[in-house]
């Protein structure tokens, strides 16, 4: 890389801070005001359906950010981040399921699907889910622990490159099979849905939706700053060393295992957070999120935007998902063609992503071959 600078560096330049704060203000203040305070016939009015839709994109952007942290900066391509996303989502979904109380179809203390399965009491892994604080902690801790355990085993035996990618695919595939089972106790095929309220606020009301939107903007901004901080620190430079030449980093005396494990776990936690914010806005979580194909799609969000930049994945996730929303409605047959062509085109002609396009030519030549692309 070109940044051979020693000593402390600010995590963002002044210009970057200004851009960051402007974008944050638009998201956290502008959108709510335009949705709630502006009259509906105004040109500036943000329609109600847009709010949760963009909120969803923000969650995907956070997933892309998490994936970029390990792929773009440490060169580890995970094709199983759906697992952490779903783990966070399920932790939140379980809580939302519990706070329905007796308003379910069967008017029971248990979630409807358990009544349907003729279960008499709550299984132990649902204990505590009625408390929001517990769910919030679980939504971060469960993916974190899962990532930690998986990373521990995988990195300790020096699994890297495509092997790692394939094993993460197997992980999400196994999890999908597990969650499709009714016995697993997470609603099986149908997953968890029919949520009514969060922290006492109805999920149907506009203000709750705006509240969730603001929470997503805040969480994403926080995650962005965290990632900025990580990649601009010394830790970040070691990660780049791992990406570019792990053997050399090892010989230089860095135990890359702990660096990789740390950033991998952080990435898992961020994904869990994204899942936890996603579920109340979308209103459902089911094993479909664990499909291997979903996790691969996440990689293209990052690749389209540009790996190894933190801003790129946010752009990529938003653009790809907007295209998905538009195309699957307007021309469903074309969507897979578009997505397939995107995968092929980006890897062939756009190794640095969309963000890379804007860079001056001289700088771009230095960046090739694409970051994270080499073993």
């Amino acid at each position, binding site marked *: 890389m070109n940044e051979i600078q020693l000593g402390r560096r600010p995590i963002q330049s002044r210009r970057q801070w200004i851009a960051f704060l402007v974008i944050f203000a638009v998201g956290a203040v502008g959108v709510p005001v335009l949705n709630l305070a502006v009259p509906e016939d105004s040109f500036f009015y943000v329609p109600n359906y847009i709010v949760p839709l963009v909120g969803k994109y923000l969650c995907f952007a956070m997933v892309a950010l998490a994936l970029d942290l390990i792929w773009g900066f440490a060169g580890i391509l995970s094709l199983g981040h759906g697992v952490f996303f779903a783990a966070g989502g399920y932790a939140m979904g379980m809580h939302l399921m519990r706070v329905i109380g007796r308003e379910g179809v069967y008017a029971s203390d248990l979630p409807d699907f358990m009544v349907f399965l003729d279960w008499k009491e709550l299984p132990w892994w649902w204990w505590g889910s009625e408390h929001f604080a517990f769910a919030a902690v679980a939504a971060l801790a469960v993916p974190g622990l899962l990532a930690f355990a998986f990373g521990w085993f995988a990195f300790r035996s020096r699994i890297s490159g495509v092997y790692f990618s394939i094993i993460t695919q197997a992980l999400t595939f196994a999890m999908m099979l597990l969650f499709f089972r009714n016995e697993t106790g997470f609603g099986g095929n149908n997953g968890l849905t029919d949520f009514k309220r969060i922290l006492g606020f109805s999920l149907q009301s506009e203000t709750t939706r705006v509240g969730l939107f603001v929470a997503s903007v805040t969480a994403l901004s926080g995650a962005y700053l965290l990632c900025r901080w990580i990649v601009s620190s010394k830790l970040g430079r070691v990660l780049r060393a791992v990406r570019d030449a792990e053997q050399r980093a090892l010989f230089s005396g860095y135990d890359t295992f702990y660096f990789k494990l740390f950033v991998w776990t952080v990435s898992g936690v961020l994904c869990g957070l994204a899942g936890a914010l996603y579920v109340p806005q979308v209103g459902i979580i089911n094993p479909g999120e664990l499909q291997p194909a979903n996790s691969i799609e996440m990689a293209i969000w990052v690749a389209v935007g540009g790996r190894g930049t933190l801003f790129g994945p946010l752009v990529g996730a938003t653009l790809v998902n907007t295209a998905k929303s538009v195309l699957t409605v307007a021309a469903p047959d074309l969507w897979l063609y578009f997505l397939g062509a995107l995968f*092929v085109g980006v890897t062939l002609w756009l190794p640095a992503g969309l963000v890379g396009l804007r860079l001056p030519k001289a700088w771009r030549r230095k960046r090739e071959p694409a970051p994270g692309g080499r073993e």
Partner: protein
Amino acid sequence: MSDLLRSSRRYRLWLVFLLCVQALAAPASAEGDEAFASALAGLGSSSRTRMIEAVEQLAALGDDRALPALEALADRRLRVGPDGALYSLTSLVGGGEVVKRIPSLEIVSEPPPGLRKAKVNNRVKRAARGAIARLQLRASDPAVRLAAATKMRTQPSVESAELIRAALAEETHANIAEALRVALAQLQLESESVELRLAAAETLGEFGDAGLAPQLRDRLQVDSEGHRPETDSQVVRALEASLAAIERRASFIEFGANLFYGTSLASILCLAALGLAITFGLMGVINMAHGEMVMLGAYATYVVQNLFLEYAPAHFDVYPLAAIPVAFMVVGAIGMAMERSVIRHLYGRPLETLLATWGISLLLIQSVRLIFGAQNVEVANPEWLSGGIEVAYGVVLPRSRIAIIAFAVIVVSTITFVLQRTSLGLRVRAVTQNRAMAGALGVSTHRVDMWTFGLGCAIAGLGGVALSQIGNVGPELGRGYIVDSFLVVVVGGVGKIVGTVWAAFGLGLLNKFLEPAVGAVFGKILVLVFIILFIQRRPQGLFAQRGRAAEA
């Protein structure tokens, strides 16, 4: 029960008489035809007594040609014309009816006016059913006899005991005789004579079909008052021994079946993973579209099948053989095109290759969906691949699976031969081991890359031909195999054909043996966990590369 036995003794005498009648009737077929015609005409009589007489005459004559008439009679489908001629009425599935003349069974387009229903009551019906059973048990076609005997075996009725005994006396076919003996033993299990019960218990134990176990258990079941249906201690012991024998046999069969289905799954995995072992193992290219190559192979088979149906229906049976080279070449060509257009630019960047080939897989799936539709298409088995071979009673091995195992063996040996003994194989191995050196020695590495990738894809296409014969063919066919095939290659050790074969075999058997114990889904999860742990222990797979190649 005793009068059943007595009547069956009487029946035996009657049977001797009957045999004599038959023996007399057989040489004089003209006389037999006349008797048959007059008996058949009796079915159209308006007197029920006369009808029952006619039914019994037909049964005694033992002529298979009476079966359609008797079946029509028993199902109240028999019609009588004004001239006394007989017709059967068959309703069609889509509505409407077909009238057939009896006994010639030719279809009558203009049925004569004034058809009336034959007068059937339950007595006539019972007589007709008995006559059908008797005729079927003595039919000249062994298949009909076996079907009748099996029906007797699975639903024995007290009335059939005499019939069975009579049929058993003249049965020459060993399988049918055995089915009859078992049916008789099932009936005799409840007879009053201790010897008969004892003999029956032993017969059933020897036969050993798992379907008999509930009946044996019922005889041994102790009720709330401490009684069991079987009172004699000797018979109880015999029953217990038979039950144990049946259970032993059942577990043995289950083991054999697991072994067989495991081997067949292993063959499929092997065919799917072999191509991957070449592209991934030898070239280091992660081809996520590999599953789609399998799918294209299956669709190529579908197209070949349709061409055969269209242009050469007479030779339909050989279409899978014709599909093999077609799938090999078509899929191989697509693979080579892929290599030239995309993969060539991504050598040395495995993660990018992975994403690009994933994109290609999406394009291929969507194209197939648009061309052939999103629904599964139907690929029919030719006759020699449908049905199965019965290796023991109730154990049928499907022919298609046997063929797949054989096919996998042939493909693996051919590929091994190609890689080890031909000049293409030599070049491929040279480029794999040291690209720069091979190039320096005059091997055109780019061309070898193209051929190798094409070969890997073509083998996947062959896997598709095999899969089309045992499962559904749809656009998503390949998705189910991609993760499995990668795991096979990884477990086997990258770059080793022999490792792929062993890993496919191991994983196939593991899957099938875990399935009955823990269920299909948990079995699969356990296998995945096992693989993840295995790779912890041996990151290089079963057969690790040694020497310099391992460092590359």
